[in-house]
């Protein structure tokens, strides 16, 4: 048996990111000094997750209008799709207050001459965000949470139908962590690296989403039977080509128009795009339009910074230093000056997120943030059907989750019984299995394991399948049942009988092994959810060539799945959409 670390806590927060840190802070605020709060992260929470490289705007802020107007905008931006308006409204009511709180904690927010926050459109403010992560982490430190850095969580523990903790391994010390908790928050982010990256080798992680969030949230919740939702959406970011910098800073930050190779501002000049909203068309439509232009031979696509606001264009480099400094280096290496020439943009591979422009995550009960597994809560990218929360929405959503967890502890979240030693032993064996297999391997003369598969090999296989058969970039993000059927067969094969060959030679590789195990579970969710929704609702993000139209009679609702371990299948159910903010869902209210 390995060395074990036992932890007994009231609230366990998995993932000390944007949502997790603020959940700790709020739980302390409402739960009082005696509450035991534990935050676990695979990295150091001061520099982990989506905020690691910094970011330069808070994309959710109510600059004008009401929280209801913001919700109307969010659903418009996802083509009027069903969204959890109850959850979004609960975030909207507290958004601005949370931002004020973070400003007090030292976050530099840019101001105009009158001292007001510098707006970027209706729902966005500019920040100097290079230090977003240390400032966010300080909230968990202030809450005096017990912080376990460098611990990778591998599985949730379920006993008597309730979530009672989690297990994981120390990525530095190799110890087995057994954490018993009365309430658990899943806040380990979304999933990168499911589809093939544009580049190989040293640049294969030059991607938009943080490559260290690998769907652990989704996979672990799926595996203990939580209802999962929204995997029929995916986020496809338009970014500055070859970098991970999103194109939004060029579009709304410096008013640069998107043009094709002919210099046409196609979103404003072509009838079919104007009809769909022009340059403020919903996010997926703008991706779709770019790809249509490229397919028609009018690529590449650029953001024409030479037509932007010159003063703002001059400050672009500083802005990118706040969130994607290597973009600045890339421009310098290619002698690109955005004031002199347009900047090429391209869509990156799809990513799974729930708090950015997609809906992946767990289904939650009312506004409690509790999943369908009692005692298990979800926030940030891990919470489903409530898109466009971004940083400030994740902070807020984390706070709300923290508060509801405290309430749960005061109500039904009574003491949990001792953990079943048999179950813990089983989870331990599972956690370290790839490492154990390595020690039993035979090797070819070049050192390659005879029967073993290295995490990177399995990852590449998986990414190739998803790219070719589940709507990758090379398929212009389109899918259809015959393609999906091949994806299903190949991914199932990997999950069902290839994982027993997965080997890891050290702890670092064990992390990679768990990344691929989790990603494979995400693949299953994606394939089955996309296949279930036999319509095209998210044109651009998931375009079905076999069902190109929307089918409101069948699918204008929420779709959830539960995993059945005996058969390894997902069983689907639908919930009706509840519209709280009145009006035409495909239009903004202001």
């Amino acid at each position, binding site marked *: 048996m390995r060395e074990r670390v036992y932890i007994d806590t009231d609230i366990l927060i998995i993932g000390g990111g944007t949502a997790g840190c603020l959940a700790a802070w709020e739980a302390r605020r409402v739960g009082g000094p005696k509450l035991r709060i534990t935050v676990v992260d695979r990295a150091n929470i001061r520099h982990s997750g989506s905020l*690691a490289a910094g970011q330069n705007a808070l994309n959710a802020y109510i600059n004008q209008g009401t929280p209801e107007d913001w919700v109307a905008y969010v659903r418009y931006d996802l083509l009027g799709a069903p969204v959890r308006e109850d959850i979004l409204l609960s975030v909207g009511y507290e958004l601005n207050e949370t931002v004020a709180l973070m400003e007090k904690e030292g976050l530099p927010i840019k101001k105009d001459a009158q001292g007001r926050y510098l707006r970027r459109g209706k729902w966005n403010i500019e920040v100097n965000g290079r*230090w977003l992560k240390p400032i966010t982490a300080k909230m968990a430190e202030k809450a005096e949470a017990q912080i376990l850095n460098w611990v990778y969580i591998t599985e949730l523990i379920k006993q008597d139908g309730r979530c009672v903790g989690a297990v994981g391994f120390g990525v530095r010390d190799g110890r087995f962590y057994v954490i018993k908790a009365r309430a658990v928050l899943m806040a380990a982010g979304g999933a990168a690296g499911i589809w093939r990256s544009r580049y190989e*080798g*040293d640049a294969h992680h030059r991607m938009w989403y943080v*490559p260290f969030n690998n769907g652990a949230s989704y996979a672990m919740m799926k595996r203990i039977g939580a209802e999962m939702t929204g995997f029929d959406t995916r986020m496809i970011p338009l970014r500055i080509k070859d970098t*991970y910098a999103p194109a939004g800073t060029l579009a709304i930050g410096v008013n640069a128009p998107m043009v094709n190779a002919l210099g046409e501002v196609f979103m404003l000049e072509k009838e079919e795009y104007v009809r769909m909203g022009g340059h403020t068309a919903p996010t997926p439509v703008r991706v779709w339009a770019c790809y249509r232009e490229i397919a028609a031979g009018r690529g590449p696509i650029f953001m024409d910074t030479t037509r932007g606001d010159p003063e703002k264009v001059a400050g672009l480099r500083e802005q990118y230093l706040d969130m994607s400094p290597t973009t600045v280096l890339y421009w310098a290496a290619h002698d690109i000056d955005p004031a002199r020439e347009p900047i090429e943009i391209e869509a990156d591979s799809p990513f799974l997120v729930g708090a950015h422009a997609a809906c992946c995550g767990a289904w939650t009960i009312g506004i409690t943030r509790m999943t369908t597994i009692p005692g298990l809560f979800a926030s940030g990218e891990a919470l489903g059907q409530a898109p466009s929360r971004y940083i400030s929405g994740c902070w807020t959503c984390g706070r709300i989750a923290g508060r509801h967890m405290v309430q749960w502890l005061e109500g039904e979240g009574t003491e949990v019984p001792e953990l079943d030693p048999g179950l813990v032993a089983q989870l331990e064996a599972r956690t370290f299995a790839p490492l154990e297999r390595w020690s039993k391997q035979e090797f070819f003369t070049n050192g390659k394991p005879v029967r073993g598969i290295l995490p990177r090999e399995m990852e590449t296989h998986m990414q190739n399948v998803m790219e070719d058969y589940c709507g990758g970039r090379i398929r212009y993000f389109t899918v259809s049942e015959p393609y999906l059927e091949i994806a299903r067969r190949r991914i199932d094969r990997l999950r069902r009988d290839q994982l027993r060959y997965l080997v890891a030679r050290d702890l670092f590789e064990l992390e990679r092994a768990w990344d691929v195990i989790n990603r494979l579970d995400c693949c299953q969710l994606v394939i089955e959810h996309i296949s279930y929704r036999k319509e095209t609702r998210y044109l651009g993000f998931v375009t079905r060539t076999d069902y190109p139209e929307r089918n409101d009679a069948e699918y204008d609702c929420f779709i959830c799945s539960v995993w059945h371990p005996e058969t390894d299948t997902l069983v689907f159910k639908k919930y009706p959409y509840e519209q709280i903010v009145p009006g035409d869902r495909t239009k903004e209210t202001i």
Partner: protein
Amino acid sequence: MPPYVLPDKCDGCKNEADPWCVAVCPGNLFMIDPVTSKALCRDPGECWDCMTCTIFCPRQAIVTQVQYQLAPIPAELIPRLGKRHITWTLIDCKGRIYRLENMILAGEGEEED
């Protein structure tokens, strides 16, 4: 390869338990080579190019380069960490030098050594 460590500049953070680059990488990519006692990025392909390691190295021993498959050298971006700002020196492929700055913490309080 995004982050390179210059052997003459890295002092392994003087055998401290948690050298800066090892402590800050969100992907757990930095380690101290047991043989040389100097830092190294163990799998550059896994790197997200966030430059956090480069910013924090107290000896400016880490150099970030754009992968050669994406951009030719030379161009350099050298951060220097102050109390409330980072000052960046950018040298482009034509040898032109720029000084750029970004704020990291609110408030005035002074600055730079």
